[in-house]
Each structure stands twice: as C-alpha cells, then as structure tokens.
C-alpha cells in the first residue's frame, strides 16, 4: 500500500462536466502531458483547485473515479459548499490545478497471500453517497483484470435519484445490491440491512469476506460495527478536512489506536483498517 507513483502538481483542462441524477456530476479532466494520476490506485485522491483567486485558497479533495488513460481522469461529486459550487458551473476549456494522486488506496483482493486483509477474500464494497467513486473505480479495475466476481457492491442512497453510475456495474457483471431509504429503488432501508444479511450468510457458509466501505461517517460507523463484530476485515475510506493533501499541514488528523494517537488521512489513509480508527 505504498504510494504507487510520485505525486506532482499539474494543470488540467475541463473536458466535460456531465450532470447525473441526484445533483451529482462528473468532471472529466485532461492534462497536456502524461500525468501521474493515470497510475492511481482506487482509493487514492487528488486535490483540485480552479483559478479562483485569493478566496477558496486550498484545494478540495476528490477520489479518483476513473483513470481513463495517462492524461485523462474523472471525479464525481455534488455541490457541498463554495468550491464544489464553482466546480458545478465549470465549462469545458476552463483550467484547474491538480495535486496527486495522493494517499494510499484499497487493499487488493489478491495482494497479500498471508491471510490478512486483501488475501483473496471476496470483497464486499459498501458505498453511500459521494463514497461511491473510489469503490466504483476499484470494481472497474478488477473487472478490467477479469475479476468481476472478486467483488460485490452494496450501494445505498436516500432515493433512486441518488444512486448513480449503476449501469456500468451491471454492464461489468458486478453483483450489486441497491438500497434506498425511501424504497424507491432496490431494498428499502439503509445499505447496512442487505449487508448484514450478506455477512450472516457468509458466516454461515464459512465464506471468507472482507469489507471496503466509503460514505458518510454514520454509515461507516455502522459498517465497522457490523464487520468487526463478525471478525470480518474491514477497511474504511475516510474524509477529513484537508488543506494540503500531502502530509504537511497536519490538519487531517484521524484519531487512531496504536503507538501514536493520530494518523493522517492524506498520507496514512484515506483508507484505514476499521480496527485502528478511534471513534
């Protein structure tokens, strides 16, 4: 889980700004030269900033949704505050500055044959809201390597409109369970409902599974509870306020158990072992 490629800062142009349902949108960004994001691991992120002058000073963190090729990649987001508000309005041709790829990505299902997380266990991907992009990217990569069946996706949102980019999952043949709070699509209720059933089934069948989750903090807290109670290795992709993204401001502290009370979301994470997170 070392950083796969050197980070760097470079300029990109907005190639497309595509609206999805539920207020989500996808920005496609391209640089003139090859950039390091092309080699990003799922779970890694970039810091993005437009030509915004003296206000909105720091970059904003976004998980890579897809590294299309050595020059183009996408992120998926929705309007949250001022920065994302400006990004919603961006037109093709406008320029942004990118730092990345940053952080450490998800464990690979076949990365470590030693029985720990990422040891060939079936990966249950649990996504909520803007937590989808890194898991979608993770699924895409595995599909690309012919391993669609190494993962199952559990994806929840408030209503049907908030579940996006599911066609791709279908197309790839990734088994996907959807859940909405209002029952307008998939299972009615939180995504933890079908996840619980799946975990229980796995336990009964003696099937080795692990969880990779990304989404709102209450969801992550619930998923951790479910996973760790059953002894299932669980990785959480966290969000913290970030100023730099590369380990120098010390703003993105994550309270952890271990030799030191804090780790850093941007350099030690954003993916953390659920056991070590001190919430």
């Amino acid at each position, binding site marked *: 889980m070392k950083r796969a490629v050197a980070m760097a800062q470079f300029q990109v142009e907005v190639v497309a700004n595509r609206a999805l349902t539920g207020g989500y949108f996808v920005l496609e960004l391209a640089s003139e030269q090859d950039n390091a994001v092309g080699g990003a691991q799922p779970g890694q992120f970039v810091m993005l900033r437009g030509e915004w002058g*003296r*206000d909105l000073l720091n970059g904003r963190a976004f998980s890579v949704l897809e590294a299309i090729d050595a020059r183009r990649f996408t992120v998926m987001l929705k309007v949250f505050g001022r920065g994302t508000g400006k990004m919603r309005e961006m037109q093709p041709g406008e320029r942004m500055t990118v730092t990345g790829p940053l952080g450490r990505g998800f464990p690979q299902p076949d990365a470590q044959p030693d029985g720990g997380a990422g040891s060939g266990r079936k990966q249950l991907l649990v996504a909520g809201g803007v937590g989808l992009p890194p898991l979608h990217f993770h699924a895409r990569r595995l599909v690309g390597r012919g391993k669609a069946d190494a993962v199952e996706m559990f994806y929840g949102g408030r209503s049907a409109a908030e579940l996006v980019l599911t066609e791709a999952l279908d197309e790839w043949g990734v088994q996907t369970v959807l859940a909405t709070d209002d029952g307008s699509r998939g299972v009615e209720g939180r995504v933890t409902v079908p996840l619980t059933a799946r975990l229980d089934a796995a336990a009964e069948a003696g099937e080795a599974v692990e969880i990779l989750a990304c989404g709102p*903090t*209450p969801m992550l*807290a619930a998923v*951790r509870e479910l996973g*760790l109670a059953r002894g299932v290795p669980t990785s959480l992709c*966290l969000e913290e306020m970030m100023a730099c993204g590369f380990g120098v401001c010390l703003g993105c502290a994550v*309270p952890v*158990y*271990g*030799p030191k*009370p804090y780790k850093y979301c941007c350099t030690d994470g954003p993916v953390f072992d*659920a*056991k*070590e997170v*001190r*919430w």
Partner: protein
Amino acid sequence: MSAPTPTATPVPLESVELACDFGPLKLRSPILTASGCFAYGQQFAEFMDLRQIGGLSTKGISPLPRHGNPLPRIYETASGMINSIGLENVGCEAFLTEKLPFLADLDVSVWVNFFGTDFETYVDCAKTLSEGGEGRIDVLEMNISCPNIKKGGIEFGTVPEVAHRLTKACVEASEVPIVVKLTPNVSDIVAMAQAVKEAGAIGVSLINTITAMAIDVRSRRSRIATTYGGLSGPAIKPVALRMVHQVAKALPGFPICGMGGILTGEDVLEYFIAGAHCVQLGTINFSEPGAALRVTRELRELMAELGIERVQDAVATLGGYEAEPAHAEVSPWA
C-alpha cells in the same frame, strides 16, 4: 470524525420571531446597519423599505463638523477593504436638525455613533446628543476605537482604565443609554469590555476595523493617504466572532452587538451562537444597498429550517465537542 449534525425540527416561517431585547432596548429585528456604512440612512430609502431593519447606527458624529482625510481613502484587499475616511461628519448641531428627524420618522432603533477628540469633547458630544435628541435617539454608540483619528489618543480604546473613566463620564452626561464600540486592536478584549461594563455602558459593539495597510509597489506609497486605515469585510469575520465569543463567555448576559464581515443570514446566526444579541451590517451595504433585507430574509428562513423560534434561543449557545475515545496502544476492536 465530525459528529453528526443534531437533527433540528423545522418550524413554520411565520413562527420565527425576530423581535428581541438588547439589554433595556426592544428591537424589532436584531439586524442593524453599521456606522460609516449607512451614512444617515437617506440614500438607502431608494433601495429598500428602511422600516424593516432593526435599526441603524449613524456615521460617527463629533461636536463640530469634520472634513475627513486626504485621498486616497479606501482600498480593496482580499475579501475586505481598508478605509481611512477620517471621521468626516456633519457635527452634532447639523445632525440634530438635518439628519435626526428623518431617522426618528422611521421608527427603527436609532443608534447615534459619536466620538470626541479628547476627554471633554467626548463628554460634550454625549451631552449635546442626549439633550438635543429629545427622546429620538435610542442608543449613543461611543466609538473609542477609530484608528484614523490623530488627536484624542489611542489609549481610549486600548487601556481599560482610560476607557472606564471616559465611559463613566459619558454615561453620567447622557440620559440615553451608551453602548461602547470597541477596537479589536488590543491584547485583551475582555478587559476592555469589562471596564466599560463596570462604567455603566449597557452593552458593547464588537468590532470596529482592524488597523491595516496596503502598498502600491510602483509608487512606493501606502494605498491610503494616512498610511494606515481600518480593515473591514469578510476577511475579519473570524476575528470578530472570536472576540464576541470571548466577551460573551466572560460576561454572560451582557449585551453584545456583533459585526464584522456579515454577508448572509448564516453569518448572523454564527454571531448569535457566539453570543451576540444583535448585529450590524457594514461593508456589504456598499455593494448591495438592499443587503439588510436580504440578510433578514435569509436569517428568518434559516431559523425556520433549524427550528429556532426566537433570536434569544440561539444566543450564546455554542456547544463543545465530545471527547474522542481515550487513546490506547491496542484497539478495543482488536
């Protein structure tokens, strides 16, 4: 982990009540406009119905008319502006005869911002305005904090004992309640607030501008003819909010009129939570002369959304964070 947002039960817009108290005063709305940013009110009548604001603070009045500083007097900086107008004003007499009648007719809270150039003229000014106001002035807002005045001494605004003495004398000379407007250019804002409270001020206005400068590198001169000016606008809001909170915490219940960089209804609510009882809008009036009404509308909507029925329900309600679980080498989850 940011803790989850406490779930608020919205209330209907109609049940939001903006009327509130500022010490002995009743305000129809907690949103006033700030001294020096609203002149004497008239010009704004072209942009909005002035009767809908909670009140207004006039340009600072001195015993005699003043002409103000040489130019340039203003300069824009990052999310703010610097000004050194020089306390230009029409003087007590012209104010009372030419400006006050218009304000009195509005039936909003009239705060007359005033200052002197030394101890005696401060007291004179308070006395003249109090007497000449004939009940039409609700507050004398005593500005002891103007960075742009040469005579009169920085000590009024920065030395608690001096501020105490001056406030006491003005309180004694005036029938009208006195609110002291403090400068942020001090090490200890609480000591200043405490001093003027004990001298009989009914409240404090926080904050005036922060002394600042900007330089034109081509002419190698300050962007402001008097070298320094006062910084206002959104840039200073975090500093103002901190001072409001410090004073509210140290002097619970003591009325604070908060200001500095307010642009939105959400900004106003931040000031209430920090401990302000009412607020003033300053710099925003220049670019958006109808701002006070928009901000009032936004505040009302936000209060409804968050289930806050009355202004005082929000005042000084800042909560703390739950402690993180104790650190341990070994995870309890392991």
